[in-house]
Every structure is written in structure tokens, then in C-alpha cells.
């Protein structure tokens, strides 16, 4: 319960009045950013990961393709990190503005509302930890020198499957469990978020249309969730030593064929030599 005691002349600080003034725009951008680029990126990401089920070579080819994108760090920041940051921070602000009441009102849609907020918080923690764990957040040498020794920034794009498998197995079953919870939370959040975005933007209006959309979003969630689960299963099954042999061969051929430039930072061996 909130009680407002402010006088009409000063409705709180300037920061709050900014959020209030652009309430509509901010919330609509929050809704949009959840679909594009964050939601769309999540689909591409989980499907790429699921390619590991085809073996380390299939996955490595997919990663080579992603790393051939020019200005990748800029693309990452503008189309992935910043939108996620925006969606996460505004999302926490939105979630904190509501007061869940599922104890007295046990309707399914009310539970979905609460679950959307709970999975949002989980996704927030999961994504920030996950990016630190594998990507490292930043690639400045001094920063990597700090986080790599504590088991963060572990992914090596040119040794994709092997570095991933090693990173995931480094703390017994902690990381696989952490990713299981995180991926499922993100999946629910996206599937249910598409449904609520459809209401927010006025795409599905009647109860019948909303019901149909709900079924479609659930089916979408199951598919995306399966992609996530199969990636996780594939990571657990991957043998880092065998995978590394394959990847090193692929790297050598690509460098010799002038398909990529040698980049020690993106390989396991080159990276460790560098330190």
C-alpha cells in the first residue's frame, strides 16, 4: 500500500517526473524491446545453441558465421546488451510498481501476471551472470585479468563447444542447474510476454482471440524451451578434449583458406599463451 503525501507543486524529484512524463513512451518501448531485439535475439541464440546437438563442428560453423559479422562488438552492444539493459531496468521498475495478490485472487491470468514478474527477476539475474560467465561483459585486458581467474569470461569463439563444455562443467552440477532454471524462466517470460504485448498493442482484442493467442504463445514457448533444453543436454554430453581437436583443425583450415584472420584472443590456446 502506498500513500502519497506530496503537495501538487512538487510531485517528487525530477527523475520521477521524467519517468512519469514519458510513462507511455517508456512502457511501450519496454514492450517493443522485449520482442525486438531482445526476444528475437533470444530465439536466434537458443537455436544456434541447439545446433550443438549436431556435434561440435556444426556448432563451431554457426559460431564462425556469427563472428564474421562486421563490427561485432558494436552490434552486440547496440542490438543486444543495451536493449537487454533497458528492458531489465525498466522491467524492474514496472514490476515494483505493482502488488501481486494471487493469494486472494487465484485466477490463472493473475498467476501468469505474478509469474511474469518473478521470471523477469530470475531472467535479470540469470542473463547478467550468464554474460559474465561466458562473454565477460567487457573485453578490456585489465578486466579479463580480473574475471578470468574466478571462472568468468570462459567462452572462446574459435573453440566454441570445448570452451563452453569446460565452463559448464567447472562447478559440478551448479552451472547446468543454473542454466536450466534461467533458460526456462526466460522462455516463460518471452512466451507470456508476447501474449501480453499483443494485448498492450491491441493485436488480439476479444477474449476468444486472446485465448487463441495464448495457445499459440504456449506452443511457441514449448518449442523455444525445447531448443534451450536440447542445447543444455548437448553441452553436458560434449567431450571438451575431442571437441577441441575438431575445432583446432577447423580453425587452421579457415586461417589457411583466408576465411578468417588469426585471432589468438578467440582461441583457447592463443588466449592462455597471451596471459
Amino acid at each position: 500500500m502506498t500513500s502519497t503525501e506530496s503537495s501538487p507543486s512538487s510531485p517528487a524529484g525530477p527523475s520521477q517526473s521524467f519517468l512519469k512524463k514519458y510513462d507511455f513512451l517508456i512502457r511501450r518501448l519496454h514492450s517493443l524491446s522485449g520482442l525486438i531485439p531482445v526476444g528475437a535475439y533470444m530465439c536466434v541464440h537458443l537455436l544456434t545453441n541447439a545446433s550443438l546437438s549436431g556435434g561440435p563442428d556444426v556448432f563451431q560453423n554457426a559460431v564462425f558465421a556469427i563472428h564474421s559479422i562486421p563490427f561485432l562488438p558494436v552490434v552486440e552492444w547496440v542490438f543486444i546488451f543495451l536493449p537487454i539493459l533497458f528492458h531489465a531496468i525498466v522491467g524492474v521498475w514496472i514490476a515494483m510498481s505493482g502488488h501481486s495478490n494471487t493469494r486472494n485472487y487465484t485466477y490463472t491470468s493473475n498467476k501468469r501476471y505474478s509469474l511474469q514478474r518473478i521470471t523477469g527477476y530470475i531472467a535479470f539475474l540469470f542473463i547478467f551472470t550468464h554474460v559474465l560467465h561466458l562473454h565477460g561483459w567487457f573485453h578490456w585486458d585489465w578486466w579479463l585479468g580480473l574475471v578470468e581467474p574466478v571462472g568468468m569470461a570462459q567462452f572462446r569463439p574459435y573453440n566454441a563447444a570445448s570452451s563452453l563444455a569446460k565452463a559448464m562443467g567447472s562447478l559440478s552440477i551448479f552451472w547446468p542447474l543454473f542454466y536450466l532454471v534461467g533458460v526456462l524462466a526466460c522462455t516463460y517470460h518471452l512466451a507470456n510476454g508476447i501474449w501480453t504485448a499483443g494485448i498492450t498493442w491491441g493485436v488480439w482484442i476479444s477474449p476468444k482471440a486472446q485465448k487463441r493467442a495464448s495457445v499459440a504463445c504456449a506452443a511457441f514457448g514449448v518449442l523455444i524451451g525445447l531448443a534451450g533444453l536440447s542445447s543444455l543436454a548437448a553441452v553436458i554430453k560434449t567431450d571438451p578434449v575431442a571437441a577441441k581437436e575438431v575445432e583446432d583443425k577447423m580453425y587452421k583450415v579457415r586461417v589457411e583458406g583466408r576465411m578468417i584472420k588469426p585471432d589468438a584472443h578467440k582461441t583457447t590456446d592463443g588466449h592462455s599463451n597471451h596471459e
Partner: protein
Amino acid sequence: MIAPGPEVSTSTSSSDRRPSKINVRVLRQDGPGTPPYWERHQVEYEPDMNVISVLQKIAAQAKTSEGKKVNPVAWDCGCLEEVCGSCTMVINGRVRQSCSALVDRLLEDNSAEIELQPMTKFPVVRDLMVDRSRLFHSLKRVQAWVPVDGYYDMGAGPRITRDDQEQNYPLSQCMSCGCCLDACPQFNKVEVQRQAGESDEAFEARKKGAYESEFIGAHAISQAMLFNSHPVAKSLEKERLEVLTAPGGVQACGNAQNCVSVCPKQIPLTTSIARAGRAVTFYAFKKFFDR
């Protein structure tokens, strides 16, 4: 009100097992801003009671179940047939009208006790009476009326198609009870305390200011849609959409959809909210690109 059918007669036969007394727990509050407290009351059971008749007995006794003499419990009521909305309160944790809350049904759910609380999202005036002025202020903000004021003859009104009538009639049944607001997780309580020496006008203005930045609520969104699809009231369409995109507008909806579930008139509130969402999508695009 309801003719006793076969179901009712079975419940009458089981009424022998019913306690002769009804325990009622009331959340009382002596005035605005004072701390609330629970109080237990016990009244004689009679068949076919509603919560209002229980409250009448409680007020007449003015005595707690421990026998302590207390001030009569205060509550609001009007029509006693679920069309005025004034007797709305939280009964056994759920918001509804007390006139249509039948005691026999409540005892089926929980025979031990009936729990009465004032609405949770509005400032308490006293006991079960709340100040619902924010609800009515929201309706004023969206100009939920047909602007035909004047003394001259305007002739016959425009024809309204059958489809529009069927869409609008359910929305016109809103009785402004506030159930949709009380059950909404996005609609937060706003209580403005009167300052010492503050004039009525200054207090009212401060209250309005506090209400206007907060969520307008499902009832007002639905009424905005009702009047935006009326051929005459449509003239204020832009003004209404402007309010629905202002701070606390339709964007504050979190799609929990409790409003439609608790609405005693089964008004398709979530349909109205989605219609409003579509209307403001187009309105905002137009406003942004046409300026």
C-alpha cells in the same frame, strides 16, 4: 430475490447442522489515518441473510462477541440489489457487493467465520466506508459522457448500428463499484492526509493532483471506449485518448485480468483495455508522425 429451487431445499435440510450463531470478523477503523483493528462479533443465524442484514444486526447490538460495548460498525449501502455499487467491500478476502453476498453461500465456503474488510485501494472514512472519489475523478478525466449540454433542440440523434449497440450495452452496465480497481495488482492505494489548517479547496486540489499521476483503472478505460464508440460522444475521442496515454494511462495495465474476473456485471473490461491499447497505438503513431 431468488426462488427456492431444489438446490436451496437441500441446503435448508442441512441448515440443522448450521450453527445458530454466525461469527463475523470486522476490520474497523475509527477515522481517516487512524490504525485499523480487527473486532469479532456474533449474530443470530437466520435463513436467507445477506451481509447487509448481518451488519444491521451487528450495528444494533453494538457489542463484540466478548460482550464489550462498542460504537456501531459503519458501512455504506444504497440500492440493496447490486446496481449502485456503494456497499462494495472485501468479504472473505474478495471484493464484492455486500448486498448480494448471501450468508448461506459464505458459510458453505467457511462456516467458522465471515471476514469483512473495507476496500483495500481506497482511503477509509470509517470502518467499512471508503472514499471512492478517485474512481469518479477518473471518469471525469476521460469525460465519460455525451457532450450535448444546451437548451436548444439538436434534433434526432444519429442511428447506432446493431453491432455497436451489442458492443456498447455491456459497457454501459458499469455501476462504478470499484471491484475492478480493488482486485487490480497495478492499481495502488493513494491516500492523501489532510494537513492542519488546510482549506477544503486546497485539500481537494492536492487529492486530485495525487490521483492524476496514478493508474486510471479498468472502469475508466472501459467507459472511454464506450463513449468513443458513441456517434456524438466521439467528438471527445482525442481528449480521451490523450488521457489514456498520459501518466497512469492504459499503459499501466499489467494484464493480470482480475478486473474482468471480479466484475459483478461481467463487463468485458479486458476487451475494452485491448481496444484502448489498439486505439492509443494508432493515436500515438499519428501524434508522433503528424506533428
